[in-house]
């Protein structure tokens, strides 16, 4: 698979960039509109939860925005990957390319969008007068982990959705639940015991937790947490690739 991605790197780049442009409707305005969504989400969550969890967080708005940005990376990335095969029927039926390229390029598009959202977070952080500390060096690694999770999940979802069109609705429901279960607006580090251990089995919950630690609270990420996140992302990638390769031969007959 890696050989194919390298061989077709020009194509991967082209597809990722053209999808990115289509998403932002080739305009600067489209780009601002797309950032409105996470900011609105921030506003709503802040109004509702700032009073409920009062003293748990200083800079709760940054806590929220970082969570929203990273969760969006996962949620938008997998939703786009889900359509990765179906949305390009011509490239499946009329030419042969290794089909994982379609999924990989959609994950790359999601990565570019996530970097933009992270930029917005950076601006908010600067406005709030909070300077990043040296622990921020973990952030690229965290981004890579989410990228692997997005790519792996998208391989499975994109393939399954090609055969069973309601996978997209099921996934939308799972994402809704995941939004709550990943601690986008709740600080799981205040939880104790089995409940905390259970919640942090979800790699996205753990990723959100450690990214806040290193970006906002100047805490070193434990190697156990890092290993857990990286290992679970690789497991997701392996499972995703397995499902994808089982279903790939029939794609042209199903799209």
């Amino acid at each position, binding site marked *: 698979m890696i050989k194919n991605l390298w*061989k*077709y790197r*020009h*194509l991967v*780049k*082209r*597809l990722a960039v*053209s999808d990115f442009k*289509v998403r932002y409707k080739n305009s600067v305005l489209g780009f601002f509109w797309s950032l409105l969504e996470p900011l609105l989400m921030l506003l709503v969550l802040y109004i509702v939860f700032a009073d409920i969890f009062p003293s748990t967080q200083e800079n709760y708005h940054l806590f929220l925005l970082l969570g929203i940005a990273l969760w969006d990376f996962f949620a938008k990335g997998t939703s786009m990957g889900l359509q990765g095969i179906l949305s*390009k029927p*011509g*490239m*499946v*039926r*009329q*030419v*042969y*390319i290794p089909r994982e390229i379609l999924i990989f390029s959609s994950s790359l598009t999601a990565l570019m969008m996530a970097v933009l959202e992270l930029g917005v977070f950076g601006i908010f952080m600067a406005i709030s007068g909070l300077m990043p500390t040296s622990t921020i060096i973990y952030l690229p690694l965290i981004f890579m982990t989410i990228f692997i999770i997005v790519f792996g999940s998208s391989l499975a979802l994109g393939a399954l959705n090609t*055969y*069973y*069109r*309601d*996978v997209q609705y*099921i996934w939308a429901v799972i994402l809704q639940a995941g939004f709550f279960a990943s601690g986008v607006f709740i600080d799981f580090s205040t939880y104790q015991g089995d409940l905390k251990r259970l919640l942090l089995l979800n790699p996205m919950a753990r990723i959100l937790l450690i990214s806040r630690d290193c970006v906002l609270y100047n805490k070193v990420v434990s190697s156990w947490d890092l290993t857990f996140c990286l290992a679970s992302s690789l497991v997701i990638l392996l499972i995703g690739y397995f499902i994808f390769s089982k279903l790939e*031969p*029939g794609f*042209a*007959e199903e799209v």
Partner: protein
Amino acid sequence: MDIIEAKNIWKNYKIPHEKRNTLFEILYGLLDTKMGYETFTALKDINFTVKKGEWLGVIGHNGSGKSTLLKVIANTIRPTKGKITVNGKITSFLELGVGFQPDLTAKENIKIYGAIMGLSDTEIDDRIDGILEFGGLTRFKDTKIKNFSSGMIVRLAFSTAVQIEPEILLLDEVLAVGDLDFQKKCFEVFDRYREMDKTVVYVSHDLGTVQRFCDKVLLLNHGEQIGIGSPEEMISLYKSIA
């Protein structure tokens, strides 16, 4: 050297009694006793080889399996049984297209197609003008494909495919929707490709062009290989089973 070798190729399509496209329907179907599908055999034991520089024509009635065979060679669908070997990079023109995306402009689509064929950015940029000019579509370079007429899409797809110098070309009904001017251009390309020793598999109902360009012809009937041989022989055999 054999550029394409097909050995005992079979292709079955699944035709579900009711098309089940959702998990929900599948789960529901498990409770339902009459679940199942029929298989339709579109290709039955096809065997042939194509040498470098050779043109193989494929003829037969509607539904005889010609397009299915081309898709198997292109690797977009996989044979149920048998083995296909291809030595070289394939350029395929299937279902009257080369994989264009309707939401992108002519230029963007050409760039993506170039990338599929492994060209670098500069190599593609060098060819864009030539492709648009050959298709007579220079004026429409920034128009989205979804606003093209079906003939224009075919023109653009064909010019893109042939201007990017393929090693092996698979052509399914290129002449079907083009106007006279386009057909003339196609013939110019065909003549040039014959001189350049390109390997081509040509599917068409236009027996005149099959006769004119092909070195040998494969005749299909209901998925069976009736014969493979000289164009004259196969065309008269085709007419006799009509």
